[in-house]
């Protein structure tokens, strides 16, 4: 194999604050032809800046101050800008994270791909049309001849990402940089896109620089893996070697902080502290402050590369020949401490806290001047579920299937169209605003995006007290003579401590906190009114793996301590396996399968559940599995397919599926699925 890309000692500065930020600091790597090189790291570690440096597309404030980037022997950093334009899109192409934002909405797909062809191959007219068609067929766009004249809004998310890939491929690049290519996509679509990329690589022999934070995607795609931390690569190995024998303490921690089924009974390992700001000067190892194995040397001397095995390098003093003997003998990630199993759960699981029956939320589609209702978007179409006291029900499904609407419908944030929500025996649907307010303290919600869920103009103390004031929940007075206001303050302190934040932070504003800390504040705000049911709407999907572990630990701890019930809305299967007691799988506004966690995850019955589970990337070096391919995308809930909603994508479709929506079939006392494959009740 020939060497394609060689980066040597790349240093990129960002002038965004009072002190310059060293986003990439002395990064060196080599990519061979036809190889997939994965750059793995958490947000803010400089992955994307590396990619942008290679393309020389840094933002205004960015600057490459040292290093060389050679592709096929030519140093990109020495090229004049005009020549660089011949490299971009031709020799190196890039796919971005958000397919919705990286296509121009006012140009047809053919025009956008044609632009590349015109620029680099001077193709016009019929020849260009032919080539566009060919490329679109290559990336698997059905009916490409017709669809190439359509605009991006007429494509679904997965299709848009295919178009992006087609655009990137149009220049027949030697190197494809994929910056989180599947992060914005659902697992089933992610599997399709990853398949496609692997396929194309096999055919054209291009190299891929894959930038991701997802260990699963790395395990699926990469030949070589480099782990980035705080602007530097700290470990580099082949995929097999990396997954068999991760060496750097940080890599260990990353693996340990992944939620999984076998870690249910204990807390997840967390990396203490946060990533150090890159604007500061480093003397020793950048990970030393958060490392369990750090000793004096780590704080004073920057570690160099040490060879673990041939081709497996790591930047850590533990593997240094000279110092190795002084290091603690075994490097094993410290697993999280076992947690007390929930006692409440077994006692009260018979008692249900919430029973939702046949919940429907329709959004009217209005047309014309008089706003005539011409149809309904059936976001939630007859969902029934129960949540036991102190238990966790996970609601799983792809984006757009109505999971979030179920959560809001239960809280009456959106008025349901029909159905009933019985909370502790009280019917919530149709309650007056005033009556509902009295019950509001009982059930609360935690949102997905910790950045938009806190008012940027309010202090933490005001944010937390807001609910207490609105619902007249008073903290327990510390002593009899205490004024209510001071006991409230005391309550805020206690809440912040409960979620692991120092009480002094209450005087600050949300923008001073990191994503994980904000999510803790959001949890504290919900806890302030002493709820019994928490609806968690993808609370960890915007967070890094190590931060996710902290939040999951916190949620588990709170459940054990306070006996909370959770409705956990998520698309992350491993989180479900770690946290949930029961699982309901949702597809297009309806629940297709439900049962206890073991039943649904262990022996999924519905074809959709099976496909969903098989599409989840497995983390491990050599676990080969059969992925059940789903064709197409989620249909629009405004116009669901007749019969079983899943039949257009189902691999096991039968004639009856086109006509009748299947009734529930029971497999055990708790496990049911809606599918014609099984005998109906």
């Amino acid at each position, binding site marked *: 194999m020939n060497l394609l890309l060689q980066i040597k000692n790349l240093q990129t500065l960002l002038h965004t604050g*009072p002190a310059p930020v060293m986003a990439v600091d002395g990064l060196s790597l080599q990519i061979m032809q036809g190889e997939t090189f994965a750059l793995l790291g958490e947000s803010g570690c400089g992955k994307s800046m590396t990619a942008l440096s290679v393309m020389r597309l840094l933002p205004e404030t960015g600057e490459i101050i040292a290093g060389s980037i050679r592709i096929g022997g030519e140093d990109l950093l020495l090229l004049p800008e005009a020549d660089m334009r011949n490299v971009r899109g031709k020799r190196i192409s890039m796919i971005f994270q958000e397919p919705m934002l990286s296509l121009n909405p006012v140009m047809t797909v053919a025009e956008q791909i044609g632009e590349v062809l015109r620029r680099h191959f001077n193709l016009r007219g019929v020849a260009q049309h032919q080539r566009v068609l060919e490329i679109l067929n290559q990336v698997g766009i059905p009916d490409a001849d017709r669809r190439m004249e359509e605009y991006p809004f007429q494509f679904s998310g997965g299709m848009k990402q295919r178009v992006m890939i087609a655009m990137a491929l149009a220049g027949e690049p030697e190197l494809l940089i994929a910056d989180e290519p599947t992060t914005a996509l659902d697992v089933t679509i992610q599997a399709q896109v990853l398949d496609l990329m692997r396929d194309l690589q096999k055919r054209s022999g291009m190299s891929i620089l894959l930038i991701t934070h997802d260990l699963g995607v790395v395990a699926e795609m990469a030949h070589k893996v480099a782990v980035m931390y705080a602007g530097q690569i700290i470990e580099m190995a082949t995929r097999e070697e990396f997954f068999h024998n991760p060496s750097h303490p940080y890599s260990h921690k990353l693996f340990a902080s992944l939620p999984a089924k076998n870690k249910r009974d204990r807390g997840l390992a967390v990396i203490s502290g946060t990533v150090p700001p890159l604007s500061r000067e480093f003397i020793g190892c950048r990970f030393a402050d958060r490392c369990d194995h750090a000793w004096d040397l780590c704080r004073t001397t920057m570690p160099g590369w040490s060879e673990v095995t041939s081709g497996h390098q790591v930047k850590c003093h533990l593997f240094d020949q000279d110092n190795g003997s002084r290091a603690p003998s075994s490097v094993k990630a410290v697993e999280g401490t076992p947690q007390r199993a929930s006692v409440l759960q077994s006692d009260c699981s018979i008692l249900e806290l919430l029973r939702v029956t046949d919940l429907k939320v329709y959004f009217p589609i209005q047309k014309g001047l008089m706003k005539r209702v011409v149809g309904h978007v059936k976001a939630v179409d007859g969902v029934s579920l129960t949540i036991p006291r102190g238990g966790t029900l996970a609601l799983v499904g792809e984006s757009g299937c109505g999971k979030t609407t179920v959560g809001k419908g239960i*809280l009456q944030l959106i008025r349901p169209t029909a159905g009933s929500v019985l909370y502790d025996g009280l019917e919530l649907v149709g309650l007056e605003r005033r009556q509902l307010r009295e019950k509001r303290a009982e059930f609360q919600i935690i949102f997905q995006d910790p950045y938009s869920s806190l008012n940027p103009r309010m202090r933490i103390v005001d944010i937390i007290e807001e609910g207490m004031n609105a619902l007249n929940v008073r903290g327990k007075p510390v002593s009899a003579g205490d004024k209510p206001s001071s006991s409230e303050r005391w309550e805020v302190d206690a809440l912040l401590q409960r979620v692991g934040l120092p009480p002094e932070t209450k005087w600050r504003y949300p923008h001073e906190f990191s994503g994980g800390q904000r999510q803790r504040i959001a949890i504290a705000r919900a806890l302030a009114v002493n709820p019994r049911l928490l609806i968690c709407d993808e609370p960890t999907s915007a967070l890094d793996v190590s931060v996710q572990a902290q939040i999951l630990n916190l949620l588990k701890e709170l459940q054990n301590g306070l006996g909370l019930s959770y409705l956990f809305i998520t698309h992350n299967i491993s989180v479900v396996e770690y946290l949930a007691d029961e699982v309901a799988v949702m597809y297009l506004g309806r629940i297709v399968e439900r049962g206890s966690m073991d039943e649904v995850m262990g022996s999924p019955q519905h074809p959709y559940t099976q496909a969903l589970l098989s599409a989840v990337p497995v983390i491990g070096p050599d676990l080969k599995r059969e992925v059940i391919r789903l064709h197409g995308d989620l249909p629009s809930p405004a116009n669901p397919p007749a019969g079983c909603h899943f039949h257009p994508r189902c691999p096991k479709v039968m004639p009856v599926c086109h006509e009748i929506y299947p009734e529930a079939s029971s497999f055990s006392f708790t496990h049911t699925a809606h599918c014609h494959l099984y005998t109906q009740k």
Partner: protein
Amino acid sequence: MLFKPVILWTDALIYLLVMVALVFVWYVRRNEHMLVPWRRVGHSASGMASLTVLVFFMSIGLLDTVHFRPAIENGSNSEKVYSVEVLSLLDIIATPLRTRVEKTYSAPFAAHLYARETIELPDGAQMREFPRLQFGGAHLQDPATQLTNDVAERATTGLALGLLSWCLVLTLLSVSLARRDSATLSFTLSAIRRGDTEVPWNAVLATLALMFMSIGVALMLSTHYHIFGTDKVGQDVFYQSLKSIRTGLVIGTLTTLMMLPFALLLGIMAGYFRGWVDDVIQYIYTTLSSIPGVLLIAAAVLMMQVYMETHPELFDTIAARADLRLLFLCIILGVTSWTGLCRLLRGETLKLREMEYIQAAHAFGVSHWRIISRHILPNVMHIVLIATVMDFSGLVLAEAVLSYVGVGVDPSMISFGTMINAARLEMAREPMVWWALLSAFGFMFALVLSANLFADAVQDAFNPRVRTWPLQARKLQRRGREQYSKDKTVEAEIKGSHSP
């Protein structure tokens, strides 16, 4: 009592506005997150320079706002009688300008009238010539030879005085800065010169230097000359320009005050409640904004004018009548101009109401009113601020246009618009009278330009997408590059020393 204080309607509203502004400043100082963007305004050189000019205009406007009626001497009667003329503090300060009225037009720095007059000579013969002015250059024996020297002499004295007072300000400022930072005086001075201070004092001081010098010159000269000439009835144009500032400021600020309640309440309500409330409000502002604004304003002003003329007993002075007309003009302008901001606020509220913190507030059962006042209002304030600052200059110009059309302020009230309106005839005269238009233009230009520059700085500071580190970042970038090239040369040297 030597005078009787008079508080006109617009005066009262201006006092209210000043109070609101003071409360706002006090509130901002207490809230760190609101202070941050204002600090960024403070870091902008153009913003601070234009603010300096604005402060000058505002202080003139405020001086012109304190109204009273002076007592009239009438010997025997013990009862005090007050003049029907309402004067302001500015009028008192500028008494020489106000009272030294010539017969008719005279050019700037002239000692003679601009028109020939028939003069009867002592011997009974008649002769047409340019008569001497009553006040302008009256101290000169022979204007033809002395005028230039006298003007130059006085201008130089003015410049020197201006510089002297500027030096005084500089010393005071640097002493207080040095004391605050506990640094030496020379260090502070050089920091100011280099522009290394947090607030760009060098830009402020440069503006101040220019302003002080021109004020000094104007003060020295205006006591003996009409520096901007006189108008048709012989009034000093410089005095008129100074008086116009208040009218412009009142229109610019009070109109906003009138418009804000409409825009805020209706815009947020439409965005927050949606449904039929939104429909009704949208219909109202779409209808309103499709009627030509000038037509609506003209109709309202003319109706009011007729009412005022038929009820003269309602006003005890001319000033009161002119003032009420000004206030009505503000109200009418406000009523017709809230639609733009309302639309902006509706859009922003539509976006905000879907934010998760609003949803969370709903989940806590927080009342609509509290959600609007605690969550939505603070988050749209930056838009309100930017819009009002941007609108200000537009409104000052609008007054000029309306007065020109004849539906603006009362003819007895001096404003940029009435000055420009008068200039219509003057420009058609031969020889042309150009100074009135030019000075109205100059003052208005300075006011509007500084307001616009300040608005720009405010907008940049409140726009989260614009990072305002330009000066510092540029410096750093340069430093980085220098460092890099230095490293390169060192590297080359090392290589060079190795190769042989």
